[in-house]
């Protein structure tokens, strides 16, 4: 009986899992500068009337070619000590900033035993230790982070000079999750996360050994791998090594939406002013201040690829003839002269069919594969999900 299908048995398929990594380099010029006109309008930055976050694209966002790469926002906890130190007039968007902090914290850190939202903790030990009460959030788009950020691959280079317009990268922090590949935390409801640590010229010793920025490679944030969210403490901009809302201010508001942020070691009294930019400026202004100081971001993403491999076992007696209309001339095989000649066929595709003979998947060969009764082979067809 002629047949053009061969049925798989139980041993002819196997499911495998592979992890695929892509390198994601984001240069600072894409994030700020490349798509700016003379008036300062940045066409690849999308802001919203609610003002709660801004979206960064890799191209002017009105173009269909633009890809969303990440969102920026910031917030602080309602219990942040510095709130009481600022003048009421400088509480710009305070409810929204607190809402953002709480929203992100409840998703990424979760709730305590009393149902209260936990605060971001600098070392992941939720029972005690230093909390990060004022933070920036970098929410990477799913397009970039895919299934997760690869542990140990994240690097953020951040200029922490006082003004981003002049020499903003003179003092540089290199923020990494270098320990992520070997040590990461699993006590978040949003999956695994690693501790971000800073190094580079922006890190200098300061008075007060208790300050996290005073040691080498101080902790400066958290990176949630599956969520694709980096939480950066605003303390990276603190002058004198104090927490942003812990006492000394971080910046003053400049003109024309320029926000001056003071790097940790600028002791200039003129720049080290209150009210704090964190409380005194809008979320967008804060995000712009951060964005203009990003020199580069790079990480590897991870895609978990589940593959079904089907072993198409083609024995010597299988598939030696063809139903191709050119195979016959007046019903006679064009590849044979005598009945004793071996039949031959050439395959260019493998079709995977359902039980009711419907074509569900197709795989193509790069070149025709000769098949005759003297050959047999196994084609491994991989179907990725």
């Amino acid at each position, binding site marked *: *009986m*002629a*047949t*053009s*299908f*061969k049925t*798989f048995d139980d041993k002819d*398929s196997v499911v495998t899992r592979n992890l695929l990594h892509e390198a994601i380099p984001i240069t600072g010029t894409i994030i700020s500068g490349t798509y700016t006109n003379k008036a300062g309008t940045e066409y690849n930055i999308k802001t919203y009337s609610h003002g709660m976050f801004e979206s960064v694209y890799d191209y002017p966002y009105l173009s269909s070619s633009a890809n969303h790469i990440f969102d920026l926002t910031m917030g602080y906890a309602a219990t942040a000590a510095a709130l009481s130190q600022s003048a009421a007039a400088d509480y710009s968007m305070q409810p929204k900033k607190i809402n953002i902090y709480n929203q992100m914290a409840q998703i990424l850190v979760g709730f305590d035993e009393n149902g209260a939202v936990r605060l971001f903790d600098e070392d992941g030990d939720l029972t005690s230790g230093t909390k990060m009460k004022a933070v920036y959030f970098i929410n990477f788009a799913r397009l970039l982070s895919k299934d997760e950020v690869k542990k140990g691959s994240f690097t953020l280079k951040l200029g922490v000079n006082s003004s981003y317009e002049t020499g903003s990268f003179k003092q540089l922090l290199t923020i990494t999750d270098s320990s992520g590949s070997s040590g990461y935390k699993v006590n978040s409801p949003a999956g695994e996360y690693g501790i971000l640590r800073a190094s580079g010229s922006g890190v200098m010793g300061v008075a007060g050994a208790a300050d996290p920025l005073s040691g080498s490679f101080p902790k400066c944030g958290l990176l949630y791998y599956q969520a694709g969210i980096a939480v950066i403490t605003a303390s990276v901009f603190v002058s004198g090594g104090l927490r942003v809302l812990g006492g000394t201010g971080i910046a003053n508001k400049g003109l024309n939406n320029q926000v001056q942020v003071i790097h940790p070691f600028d002791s200039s009294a003129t720049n080290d002013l209150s009210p704090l930019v964190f409380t005194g400026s809008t979320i967008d202004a804060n995000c712009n201040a951060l964005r203009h100081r990003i020199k580069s971001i790079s990480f590897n993403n991870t895609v978990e690829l589940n593959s*079904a491999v*089907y072993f*198409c076992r083609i024995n010597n*007696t299988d*598939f*030696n*003839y*063809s*139903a*191709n209309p*050119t*195979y016959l001339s*007046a*019903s*006679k*095989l*064009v590849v*044979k002269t005598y009945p*004793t000649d071996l039949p*031959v*066929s*050439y*395959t*260019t*595709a*493998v*079709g*995977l*069919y*359902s*039980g*009711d003979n*419907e*074509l*569900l*998947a*197709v*795989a*193509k*060969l790069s*070149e*025709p*594969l000769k*098949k005759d*009764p003297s050959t047999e*082979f*196994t*084609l491994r*067809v*991989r*179907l*990725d999900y």
Partner: protein
Amino acid sequence: MGFLDNSGDIILDAVLTDLGRKRLAEGNGSFKIAKFALGDDEINYGLYDKNNISGSAYYDLNILQTPVLEAFTNNMSSMKSRLMSIARNDLLYLPVIKLFNEGNTALNSEFSNYLNLVDRNTVDSLAGTGNNVLPAGIINGDIPSQGTNLIEVDQGLDTIELPGTSVIAQDLLETQYFIQIDNRLGFLAAPGTNANTNEALSFTPTSIDDDQIATYIFTLNDDANVVTRIGENDASAIVGPRGTKVRFKIGSSLDLKTSTFLFTQLGSLGTTAITGQGGATIAVGGYRYIDSTVRVSGISTGYTVDLPVRFVKKTT
């Protein structure tokens, strides 16, 4: 010492067809891969040079250089010709499936396809009111059972080198067929004729894919009586040993009968007058039509033939 050839195991990446994606999305277990087939759509076996003076290594030089296209995701566009497994290696002839283009199964000679009249008004315009007789190649799609014209394809060894009276080998006999038709346009109906019935006597498709292609499966000597053996004395398109024949009619869909929407969207305005029975005509510009194909495939041999069908609706 040289390396062993390790090229015997080949890894290919497959892509889901649109139907595969649809079934996967349905999540009802209908996405289950059960079998495979090999295709050779790009191959032109006419390039096989079995008389090459340089020897057998050169016979298939041109075939092996054939560029291969990437996979189409449309399930109807891929794997149109499949390779076959037959236990014997000594076959010199293989069966074909061929349209029987004679008598009441002939193509319309004017348009070289089957004209399917989709509603009563169109049928009456070409047959006369109350009269069901239509010229060859024009099918009553309104009530298929009332018409005498039908479609027939024959299977067998179409060669004069073997006598038509000889029996086709059992392993070359096709006993089961797919027939595929655009379900938006029409359906398959039984080949029988009963001028006094208003029933369509349609079959139920086995499946309808995401592109609205309906697949019907018929088996030799099943109740549908669509697939039968070609008798020794039957007229046939096959000149050598005969196998089976497939006979069916096509009815028009309700959409085509009651609306001109699809004719406007997919069709064209008639540019040639259609001649019916007794000199009746539908004039140029007096009808719209949609050209489509009906595909008949042998399940065992994989041999496929596409039949051209034109759905016609009188508009004036």
